[in-house]
């Protein structure tokens, strides 16, 4: 479904990603694990198209995304929830969601007109709480609510792939469980997920497969339990 092929990305003069490759299959939750500054966010942002690639390719479905602008990628069915959630502060939650929905509608209209799953049902299916927040302004949401809105909004797009950057960061342990459930629900809806996560433990709990990134290179990929026994992984993550 998504194939990232030996990409090199720079931030300013700094060479961040050094030949990162990874793959996400249909209906799969893949976690990208690494400590801060290892290149997780950079990878996600490269996939979303915020950072230009110096080399490598990104293929989604059967299409080469490498040269496409972010909004074009969104139209191809990639949903995104960034680390800071990116909820528009001066729009109502409803408007936040509608922006996604319009795009989804537009895309499905343009494609052969096949019915897409009801986006509202999907989004509120994941986080029913959001329904009670619709009239609230983005800026008046708490941290946890913001994360929920961000993910619900991404779901409004009826995406086939969801990119979640640090979806659990800063959440209290109780709330983390709530989000874990949500991720499972999304998966059950047939959506693939690529998650950036700094904690191996939470990643292991959720991910079907893991990639471990360190200093801009993928140093491991495989099943969660394999990662725990891999010495390189443990050294990179724990020291």
């Amino acid at each position, binding site marked *: 479904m998504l194939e990232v092929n030996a990409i090199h990305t720079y931030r300013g003069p700094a060479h961040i990603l050094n030949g990162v490759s990874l793959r996400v299959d249909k209906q799969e939750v893949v976690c990208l694990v690494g400590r801060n500054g290892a290149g997780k966010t950079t990878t996600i942002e490269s996939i979303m198209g915020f950072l230009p690639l110096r080399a490598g390719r990104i293929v989604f479905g059967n299409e080469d995304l490498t040269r496409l602008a972010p909004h074009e990628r969104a139209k191809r069915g990639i949903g995104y929830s960034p680390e800071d959630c990116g909820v528009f502060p001066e729009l109502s939650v409803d408007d936040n969601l509608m922006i996604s929905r319009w795009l989804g509608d537009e895309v499905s209209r343009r494609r052969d007109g096949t019915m897409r799953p009801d986006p509202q049902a999907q989004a509120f299916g994941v986080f029913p709480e959001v329904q009670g927040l619709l009239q609230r302004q983005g800026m008046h949401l708490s941290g946890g609510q913001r994360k929920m809105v961000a993910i619900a909004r991404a779901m409004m797009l009826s995406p086939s792939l969801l990119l979640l950057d640090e979806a659990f960061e800063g959440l209290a342990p109780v709330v983390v469980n709530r989000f874990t459930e949500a991720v499972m629900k999304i998966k059950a809806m047939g959506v693939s997920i690529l998650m950036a996560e700094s904690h191996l*433990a939470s990643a292991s709990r959720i991910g079907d497969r893991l990639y471990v990134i360190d200093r801009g290179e993928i140093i491991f990929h495989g099943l969660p339990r394999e990662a725990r026994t891999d010495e390189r992984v443990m050294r990179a993550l724990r020291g």
Partner: protein
Amino acid sequence: MTLLETVNLKKYFGDTHAVDDVNLTIAEGEFISVVGPNGAGKTSLCNVISALLVPDSGRIIFRGSDVTHSSVIERVKAGIARSFQLVNLFDDLTAFDNVALAIFSRDGKIRNMAALADHDRAVAVEADTILEQFGLASKRNEIARDLAQGERKLLDVALAYALRPKLLFLDEPTSGVSTRDKDKIMDTIASVVRAEGITAAIIEHDMDVVFKYSNRIVVMHQGAILAEGTPDAIRNNDQVAMILLGSSGPDAFSRKE
């Protein structure tokens, strides 16, 4: 001896009770940790104590005098220093200049506009010593912006430390750094602080860190102090475990990755 005392401290944001009637006491020489789930009000408390926020009511007493309405600068001068969760540095200055600045300010030399900063031997020596203590000596002449995340965290603390405060507030000194760097940073901070006998209060998520370094732990929940006590007492407090981890039981805190 009591160094800092807050009396019925309150700070509300609309309906959110960020700091709700907090009576916190910090004794001289302590290394305390403030923990709690997200939104518990830890950072708000830190902000109120460091004068970044004005409390709605209540008092703050530092070394016997009421500092509730004194400004950031007055509190810095009185001896309260803090570091920041999101690194707050002088990004276009060198690591050395960052630290030197704090020293100039502390010594009241910062108003001097008639002498070259680089020519002050005493300050230079001290700044280099501090960089050394924080393991940043080799980064002396690097621009703060170009340092690695862990180094930036350390420099942030070093900046607060260079003020030689009576009370050092550290807001999540290890957030955003890898587990490996975490220990290194905490070891560095703890050793420096202990060596100088500085009273330190840290806000922290990682319970491993909290248990390892603090003499006393304060648990906050919904703006109020839920519990406080020694690491052992907290470790065995079911209510705390429930709130922080969503599960309780004797080994709740010992589950490791």
